[in-house]
C-alpha cells in the first residue's frame, strides 16, 4: 500500500478509537505484525460486548478511511480491499464474538458500517483523520503525545 493511503488507513483506526473512548498509545506505519502494513495500539477501559463492539468499529475504520481517501476511481481497484485482510480477520472474529448466529452477522456488520460512515463523513472527523494522516505520513510513528497534538 502507498504511504499516504496507509497513513489514512491507520489514522482512521486511531481517530475512531479515540472517539469511541480508547486511549491510543501508538500508531505507526512501520508495523511488522503479520498481515498488517501499519498498526494502532489502543488501550481500552471497556469490557465484554461493549469492548468487542468498539473494537469492531475501530477495525473497520481503517479500510473505510482509506476508501474515503482513495475515492471511487483508482488504478488497481482489486488491491484496495485485498490490502485490509488483517483488519478483516479481526473484524470477523469480533463479529463472531458479538453474534454467535452466523445469519445475523450481516445485519450487525451493516449497523457497524452505517454508524462508522456517519462518523467518518462528519467534516470535523474527516479533518481530524486528515491531520493525523498527514503527521503520520511525515513521522512514520506517532506516540500518544504527538497524536494528541493532531487531534
Amino acid at each position, binding site marked *: 500500500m502507498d504511504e499516504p493511503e496507509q497513513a489514512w488507513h491507520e489514522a482512521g483506526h486511531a481517530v475512531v478509537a479515540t472517539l469511541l473512548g480508547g486511549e491510543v498509545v501508538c500508531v505507526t506505519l512501520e508495523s511488522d505484525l503479520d498481515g498488517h502494513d501499519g498498526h494502532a495500539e489502543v488501550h481500552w477501559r471497556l469490557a465484554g460486548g461493549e469492548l468487542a463492539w468498539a473494537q469492531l468499529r475501530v477495525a473497520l475504520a481503517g479500510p473505510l478511511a482509506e476508501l474515503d481517501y482513495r475515492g*471511487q476511481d483508482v488504478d488497481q*481497484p482489486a488491491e484496495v*480491499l*485485498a490490502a485490509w*485482510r488483517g483488519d*478483516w480477520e479481526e473484524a470477523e472474529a469480533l463479529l463472531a464474538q458479538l453474534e454467535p448466529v452466523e445469519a445475523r452477522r450481516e445485519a450487525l456488520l451493516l449497523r457497524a*458500517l*452505517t454508524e462508522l460512515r456517519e462518523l467518518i463523513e462528519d467534516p470535523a472527523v474527516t479533518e481530524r483523520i486528515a491531520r493525523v494522516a498527514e503527521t503520520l505520513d511525515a513521522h512514520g510513528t506517532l506516540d500518544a503525545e504527538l497524536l494528541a497534538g493532531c487531534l
Partner: protein
Amino acid sequence: MEAITDRETLRSELSRLAHREQRVVGGLVAILFRNAQRVRDREWVAQQFAHVAQLSGEFDTVPQLEGYADAHGPAVLRATLGLFGLVGQDMQPLVDKGFTSEDAMAQAMTYFVPADQLPNAN
C-alpha cells in the same frame, strides 16, 4: 456455476467487472488465500462475499445488500473462484520452496492487468 479454467477467460471476465466488483473480488480472494481450507464451503464463501461487499459500497438495509448480491454475486463469485484456482496452479512450482498468501495475492493482481498491457505483450 461453470468454473473458469483458462487464463484468457479469467482476464476478460475480470476486466469486464466494474471497479466496485473488482474490489470485492480482490478482497474476497485475499480472504480465500488465508482460509484455503474453507474454499469448498460455498455457504461460508457466500457469507464472506456479503461481508466484503458491505465494505465496498454503501448499503443502508439488508434487502439492499441482498439485491446487490443477487445482481452481482454470481459474476463476482465465478471470477473469484476462477482466480483462486488459477493462481493456485500458478503457485504449484513454488510449493516445495514455500510461498505466502502475500505471494499468491501478488500473482492474483497480475490477472487484473489486461493481456495487451502485460510486460511481455507484443
